[in-house]
């Protein structure tokens, strides 16, 4: 019997890297929108932070969509 260590290692690496990537992106999105929140509280605006925040969310959503297309494929 041969254990397929390669596939196991792939699951480990992909699992950790993709999770960190998704959670990291999403949290960056929250951080970006937080700056906007803080700016609004000061009576100004932080357009760059806001756009960046939404871009992070969009990237994370795209990654999820890719994942679903993988299982559907």
């Amino acid at each position, binding site marked *: 019997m041969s254990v397929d260590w390669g596939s196991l290692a792939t*699951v480990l690496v992909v*699992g950790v890297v993709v999770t960190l990537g998704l959670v990291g992106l999403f949290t960056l999105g*929250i951080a970006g929108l937080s700056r906007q929140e803080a700016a609004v509280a000061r009576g100004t605006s932080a357009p760059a932070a806001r756009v960046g925040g939404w871009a992070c969310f969009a990237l994370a959503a795209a990654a999820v969509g890719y994942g679903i297309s993988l299982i559907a494929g």
Partner: protein
Amino acid sequence: MEHITLLIGVVIATALVFDFTNGFHDTANAMATTIATKAMAPRVAVAMSAVLNLAGAFLSIEVAKTISGGIIDEGSGIRPQVIFAGLIGAIVWNLVTWLAGLPSSSSHALFGGLIGATLAAVGTHGVHGDAVVMKVLIPAVASPLVAGLAAAAATRLTYRVGRNAGEHTARRGYRAGQIASAALVSLAHGTNDAQKTMGVITLTLVTGGVLAPGSTPPVWVILSAGTAMALGTYLGGWRIIRTLGRGLTDVTPQQGFAAQTAAATVILASSHLGFALSTTHVCSGAVVGSGLGRKGAVVRWGLAGRIALSWLVTLPAAALVAAGAALLADRGPWGVVADGLVGLVVCAGAWALARRRRVDHRNVNADEPAGVRVAPVALPVAVPLTVPVTAGAVRTGTLAATIAAPATAAPKQAEKEAAL
């Protein structure tokens, strides 16, 4: 389709019953942390999970194929009775663990049942031993570790990156993130577990000579399997939700989000590589990992150990019950009937026992996870003292005012809290 006999009909019905127990056993996987952090109301959460389970059932049939042709040898003379016995074993074990509130793997119960019944009925050549080790046992050990590691790292990361986040944005953001990641886990659960039942029904139809070996599941099989599981999910296995969401560790929104994302990623990555892993193992591992990743979080290792023990026991226990059922079913039609009766008695018994200590959407977030004895909070004896405390209105310093204050609403509130 004209050759579906009574026996095959019974086996298909039993498979759908198993699918139903699978649904309510595993609602916790997708929704426990989401419900515990109150990101979604319990009923709404299980409804969403049910819909996505059904949708997931239509996404893919890859796993169904590994069941019907993978671990059990279709050509070794397995008859529908054997599959029936396997399903009885799986259902019995699922109900026992549900009563105990233990998140054991429905997939392992199913595999164990099928393996046990096959061993008893046709002997060792009916089971592909290599496939069992490679596709079932190794993923069972590896997947919770991988998911736990990913969840721990992700929890640490999200706390670090989001440490300056504004309160309002963070609350809304993590809530959305939790809902999205729970939805993804539900979808993955639908594709994985509904397919296992589809595979069993297809295997039955093949052994009964209705379908040619190597056939893919017909549409009515996909639809009925998806629906049975969605119904079970909607009913909600509140006991297990409580264990996973409240028992293992105190889950914050950040942890819930990290754990669910890790679980979804690991499930998708490994199903893409052809491991039929247990959603339950992955999700429990991820919850424990998220507890390790947050500073100051407590992981209740005693409960985690008990859960791990139930994982070890699940496959052999279901196999043992199924082997007994298979020996009985082999005696003839009366044996099959006897098996069916035993199954019904266990279902009725479990249902009756569950009613005695009810766990449902109303008390799922109460502070005493099933089977875990949390030190009870000592309720102050003097009534006038407890009321203002629970009502959150007045402190002990102004005791004179507090005795006068609570009139009607506050005692009711206190009663409610005491009852929980």
